[in-house]
């Protein structure tokens, strides 16, 4: 504990208090005070190896040895306040879920150039454009015609 405080004081001395606090926030230490998951991840990170960082900035850690098997790989999401599992790109998914021992960086080399789509996280429920409104929903205008028959059109006869 003492070493943590000492290194923190040292960092404040080097960078100044404002930039230290900003760094703390960016690294999610402030969020971790309220977010137990993040706090646990941060604690878990101590002594772990950083295996890689993907293009979104998610950090992948591994800790062998005394860690329980099956809990020895984890991810610290880039986004500290809004994170979910769909932010992991497919190349890292296999490594993270123990499907393969090849890291995402290695697997990225095998990604076909022609049709590989950019990974996008699942944005369901994140705003109007990501919500499906059924036909007839008040937020889905223009699709409210429920007429399923074609009426006879009176022509001049």
């Amino acid at each position, binding site marked *: 504990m003492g070493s943590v405080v000492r290194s923190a004081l040292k960092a404040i001395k080097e960078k100044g208090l404002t930039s230290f606090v900003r760094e703390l926030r960016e690294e999610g230490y402030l969020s971790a005070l309220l977010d137990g998951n993040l706090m646990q991840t941060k604690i878990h990170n101590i002594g772990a190896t950083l295996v890689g960082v993907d293009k979104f900035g998610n950090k992948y850690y591994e800790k062998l040895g005394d860690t329980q098997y099956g809990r020895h790989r984890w991810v610290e999401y880039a986004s500290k306040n809004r994170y979910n599992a769909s932010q992991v790109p497919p190349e890292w998914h296999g490594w993270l879920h123990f499907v393969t021992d*090849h890291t995402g960086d*290695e697997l990225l*080399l*095998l990604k076909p150039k022609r049709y590989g789509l950019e990974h996008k996280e699942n944005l369901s429920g994140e705003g109007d454009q990501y919500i499906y409104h059924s036909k007839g929903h008040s937020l889905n205008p223009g699709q409210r015609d429920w007429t399923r028959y074609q009426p006879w059109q009176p022509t001049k006869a």
Partner: protein
Amino acid sequence: MLGRLAAQRFREIRQVFRQIPLVSRSFSTALNYHLDTPDNNPDLPWEFTEANKVKVKEVLSHYPSNYKQSAVIPLLDLAQQQHGGWLTVSSMNEVARIIEVAPIRVYEVATFYSMFNRTKVGKYHLLVCGTTPCMLRGSRDIEDALLKHLGVKRNEVTKDGLFSVGEMECMGCCVNAPMITVADYSNGSEGYTYNYYEDVTPKRVVEIVEALRRGEKPPRGTQNPKRINSGPEGGNTTLLGEPKPPPCRDLDAC
């Protein structure tokens, strides 16, 4: 290392695809449905010749009058001989008319049997046996030799319309394998022959083809001069003495 991994995977995938035969083997000479062509469409008139009409009557007389449809195979065969070895839609319709069934019932029979050809064949239709004994004795080489010599693909007619090569299932000559059959449609149903040439070699089949081209009739049966019919090469090797009588209970003993 990754490159090697990828290359190995690629090789594996290619291996899988290679195992799938690219050309499926078909024993019949045509598709199972009819496509109109100038020489094969339902509008073309087709009739049995006068001589064959007599034969039709003879064939029909083999069957009871309420079971005329039993004559479908002999009549189709006759129609095929008359029409140069293959059946057009109109010839099948004519057979259906004679035996008084719906045309589809005749089509069913004609598509079922691979010896009814529904596309054009050569005047000499050469059929190579492809069943196991013949195949073990080299029928593939014989077919290759024929195809190479004639310059055609299987079930394709040569440019002069004389030859076509097809494959057949076992024709019961396994003892003289490999063998080919020559169906001779050059003289209509009168001069129709269906001869077996057995114990053939890739060299010998080419000779046979050339002889046929010259209009000769090569001797049918075994092509191995040292054999007589199905007998072993160079004379019998077993059963040389008098056959022993069957063992019988001594009737006097009891």
